[in-house]
């Protein structure tokens, strides 16, 4: 049960703190998890000074608004950004692994997929991530407004090109289809008219939002049957006024946190309505889910396929380790199909069974053994022409070499009698029941020289299973 809560609202239990957690009565699990995420996050800043110099300039602000980079500067920016983005990726993984604010980072990962943006500009990406982490547990309206005014989203959805004379509908369409209402709750005409309302929404080179009034269409627009000289803020308000938005978010959260196959409509209505009535307090809906009985119902346990990031961070929380080559984690994300900051498109990662094909599954199964046996990660992801600009070539294979700190695991299991060991380890690692655990098979493939060998190799083997892929 505790296991279920920690995997769904976080990245799984940390071996070291498991004993302390499990000594607590169930009614304090959720408040503890929640309270550990209440403090404001520390923002990440990995953007190189050269990048900031290019984008933020040193002159007065007025000049910056229209400043543009020349070709060489753009090239330098792209190169440095790519490197910095990798650092941002790795830094965020560290935070997910080590922070007590598990709820915040898990929800930030959810919003990172919901407000998916591919943008090679490191400054804009870290600004967007800051908005998301800041509001991950805050107010959905504020989050929506912050994201909509971020340079990363404005440029990803082409709103700089959305001008009075030539409206570009991309932003208006995605904000309705993917961020708020979902398909079927608006008309093509609503999109056309909303696009006019968003004309003039732009950003400066340094990422600050700017409203360019000369690009803005000040005429009347008719959206959802209402007519007025609406601007972008008013359209966002109109989207939030619709209950469909609350239901849409409730359904998506339910799929992420509870169950992606069986989604009772009345439950979504109940969650969505309460979310709506709270004025879109994200904590309200999380709390409603976490405190419900159905959250812990057997049909909702062990039924989600872990995303590659959740799987990997979870492994690191179970087995604290020092990675010799942290960048190998980038290769791993690529080969498993989820690279932070590179969602497949604006709809985000599809999730569920989409994570799984023959090669991704075999790699997932082999990860624990690759680390334990210090083997080469002999798998490479596909080239990305948006990033590499034609300069591709096959990279080198990396190793997931890591120094595993086995002490927490040994503390936990060294007193367990041998005949109960596998059951205990399985119970700790798996979200599904260990009733069908094929003990003799695992037994035949573990080491028995010492108790430590036995414990360690059992942990590795039980992680290298289909059961460990779900939570």
């Amino acid at each position, binding site marked *: 049960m505790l296991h279920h809560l920690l995997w769904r609202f976080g990245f799984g239990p940390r071996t070291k703190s498991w004993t302390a957690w499990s000594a607590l009565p169930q009614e304090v699990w959720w408040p503890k998890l929640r309270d550990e995420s209440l403090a404001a996050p520390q923002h990440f800043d990995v953007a190189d000074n050269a990048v900031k110099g290019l984008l933020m300039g040193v002159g007065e602000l007025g000049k910056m608004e229209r400043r543009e980079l020349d070709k060489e500067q753009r090239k330098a920016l792209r190169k440095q950004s790519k490197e910095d983005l990798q650092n941002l990726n790795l830094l965020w993984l560290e935070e997910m692994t080590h922070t007590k604010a598990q709820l915040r980072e898990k929800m930030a990962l959810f919003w990172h997929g919901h407000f998916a943006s*591919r943008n090679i500009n490191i400054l804009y990406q870290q600004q967007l991530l800051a908005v998301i982490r800041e509001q991950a547990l805050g107010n959905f309206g504020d989050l929506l407004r912050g994201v909509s005014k971020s340079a990363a989203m404005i440029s990803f959805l082409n709103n700089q090109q959305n001008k009075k004379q030539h409206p570009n509908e991309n932003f208006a*369409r995605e904000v309705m289809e993917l961020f708020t209402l979902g398909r079927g709750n608006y008309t093509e005409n609503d999109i056309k008219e909303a696009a006019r309302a968003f004309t003039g929404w732009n950003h400066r080179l340094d990422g600050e939002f700017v409203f360019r009034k000369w690009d803005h269409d000040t005429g009347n627009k008719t959206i959802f049957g209402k007519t007025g000289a609406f601007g972008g803020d008013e359209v966002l308000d109109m989207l939030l006024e619709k209950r469909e938005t609350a239901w849409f978010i409730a359904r998506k959260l339910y799929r992420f946190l509870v169950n992606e*196959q069986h989604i009772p409509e009345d439950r979504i209505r109940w969650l969505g309505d309460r979310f709506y009535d709270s004025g879109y307090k994200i904590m309200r809906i999380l709390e409603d889910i976490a405190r419900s009985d159905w959250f812990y119902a057997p049909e909702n346990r*062990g*039924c*989600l*396929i872990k995303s590659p990031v959740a799987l990997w961070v979870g492994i690191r929380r179970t087995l604290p380790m020092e990675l010799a080559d942290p960048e190998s984690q980038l290769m791993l994300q*690529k*080969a498993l*199909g989820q690279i932070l900051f590179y969602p*497949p*498109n*604006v*709809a985000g990662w*599809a999730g*569920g*069974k*989409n994570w*799984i*094909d*023959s*090669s*991704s*599954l*075999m790699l997932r*199964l*082999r990860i624990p*053994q690759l680390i334990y046996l210090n083997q080469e990660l*002999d*798998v*490479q*992801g*596909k*080239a*990305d*022409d*948006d990033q*590499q*600009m*034609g*300069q*591709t070539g096959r990279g080198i294979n990396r190793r997931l070499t890591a120094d595993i700190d086995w002490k927490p695991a040994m503390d936990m299991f060294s007193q367990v009698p041998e005949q109960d060991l596998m059951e205990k380890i399985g119970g700790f690692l798996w979200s*599904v029941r260990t009733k*069908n655990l*094929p003990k*003799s*098979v*695992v037994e*035949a*493939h573990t080491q028995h020289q010492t108790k430590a060998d036995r414990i360690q190799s059992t942990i590795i*083997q039980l992680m*290298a*299973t*289909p*059961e460990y*892929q*779900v939570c």
Partner: protein
Amino acid sequence: MLRRDFLKSGSLATAALWMPGFLKSLETPGAVSVNGRKLVIIQLSGGNDGLNTIIPVRNDIYYKERPRLGIKREQALSLTDEAGIHPALSGLKSLWDDGSMAILNSVGYPNPDRSHFRSMDIWHSGSPADAYWQTGWLGRYLDAHCAGRPAAALELDDTLSLALKGENTKGLAFQDVKRLYESTRSAYFADYVAAGPKSPNDEKPVDYLYKTMAETLSSADYLFEQSKKQPTQAAYPPTGLGRDLKTIASLILADTNTSVYYASLGSFDTHINQDGQQKRLFEELNGAMAAFAADMKANGKWQEVLVVTFSEFGRRVAQNASGGTDHGTANNMMLLGGGLKQEGLLNPMPDLVDLEEGDVKFVVDFRQVYATLLQRWLEADAQKILNTSFQPLLFV
């Protein structure tokens, strides 16, 4: 049960537990393959410059817009009076001469996207430009026609492309059959699956994982055996694509139950110094393709094989200032095989007068090409797979 008993149970036995029809389906060649035909897709990643591939040698606008990059008529290998092919593609020119090649010009889609990733996503999923589909066009073919038939679609790469991902059935990706076999060879995995639940229920994610695992192990065994059965004796160039087509050839010669093979070559993203880079890649394509076609012909398989090339977009008509070209839109596709019903230029060369923002306008929707491949080559239900009805073309 003793350990040695487990070790005796190979992965194929494992598969038998999970998929009762599996072994049987593999033992009767042709029984599950629709019609023995193979579709080989070669993805030219990065946006190949189609105008310097099939060159409009009579078009003044082409030479005017490309004073430095344009390939002169006397350098191009002549195909027709108005079209030539890149000088590095002499092997393709020979296939043209013997009636094994067709070219479809100006293939694209409405509201083209010029980002590599997004446009590739559209080509892979077969979606309209304003929709986000989570499965690929070949993946949906697998769902519709190849359920329970592992190894129906293979990709020569470490990771699987969206194009080959169906909702429930997916292609299998590997670089090298032997390595695939070795990576799945762990006795632990085989034993573990064999001891797994016996009543697979696709609904439950864990069972779905067991099923995928069992299929992977069995397919790896099967493909490894197939690759040793009748390995091709022909010489292939020692390049990436050369190796990939050699692997494909060996599997085809062994009558493997695979309908779709997928390989990639790149990067064709030639913003700078296009000449050298495109030439180098074309040499790789040419060498590999010439060897493959010769091999298939020598073994009487060329009639059953259709090779199709595509790229996520073509490039701007005008050259840029760095000796390259920028992202464009519509592009040509090459079709190669002994079973073509139409050969040569299937439609007019691109119109370089009526452009959209400097790019070629699309005339043929790429999904119409997919519909043709699905319906007329693989005998599949194209409308169901593409979710729209497209009039098939007549080249196969």
